[in-house]
């Protein structure tokens, strides 16, 4: 049976390549991005949304479940970086990075896990960065947001769904 996969941030980069790969393998992919995406495929569904917008995320995930009656995999791919020195990082930038990287992963995971728990099956994949492990200078806000994603992955209740950090 073809898998139903949600991938955030499919407009470009890793998210785009993953979407194309899974579509080529016959899976059904639901993607999202803030800006328009030109990926077209009969099994690809796209919506423009901000992953930190709770109302939009809830509606998006609900719609996937309503259409497919299951969600097999969530890939929390959407992310943004800020390489500014901490003393030159505006609050708004810090909020945007935290919102996209942590809040986006949190909201999508929470909503998808509801349906995955019901079907007693599902996988969630989160992304971290070497900047966390290596404590890279100049990436404080970015690595802090990814450290939060790592902790989300570690503390996630095992009884709900399988979650992995990559």
């Amino acid at each position, binding site marked *: 049976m073809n898998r139903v996969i949600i991938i955030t941030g499919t407009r470009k980069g890793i998210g785009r390549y993953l979407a194309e790969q899974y579509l080529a393998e016959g899976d059904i992919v639901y993607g999202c991005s803030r800006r328009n995406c030109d990926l077209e495929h009969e099994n690809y569904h796209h919506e423009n949304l901000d992953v930190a917008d709770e109302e939009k995320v*809830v509606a998006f995930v*609900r719609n996937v*479940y*309503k259409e497919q009656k299951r969600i097999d995999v969530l890939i929390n791919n959407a992310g943004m970086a800020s390489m500014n020195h901490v003393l030159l990082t505006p609050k708004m930038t810090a909020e945007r990075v935290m919102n996209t990287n942590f809040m986006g992963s949190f909201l999508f995971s*929470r909503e998808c896990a*509801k349906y995955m*728990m*019901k079907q007693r099956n599902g996988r969630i994949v989160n992304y971290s960065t070497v900047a966390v492990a290596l404590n890279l200078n100049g990436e404080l806000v970015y690595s802090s947001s990814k450290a939060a994603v790592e902790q989300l992955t570690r503390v996630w*209740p095992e*009884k709900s769904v399988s979650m992995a950090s990559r």
Partner: protein
Amino acid sequence: MDFEQIKEIVTNVIREYCELNHIEVGELTKDTPLIGSARILDSMGLVNVIVDIETAFLDEDIEVSLTSDAAMSSRISPFRTIGALSHFIARQIGIEA
């Protein structure tokens, strides 16, 4: 949909969860407690039931959110009994004022 149908969905979901997890409960009524010392579910059971109730209503094309700020911050918890939870859902979908 009326209140009785809402209560029936809520009760059925809880009964199914209890049967599936070998939790022995007597008759489920509107006064059956979901939290507190006499509760029939543990905390993880309540989480599972909340999720199952949300999706059961979604299968009926009715969207309810039991993890909303309103539900979590209410002075009197909507999760205290099957009846209270059913009333909370009824208010959320506009059946009760």
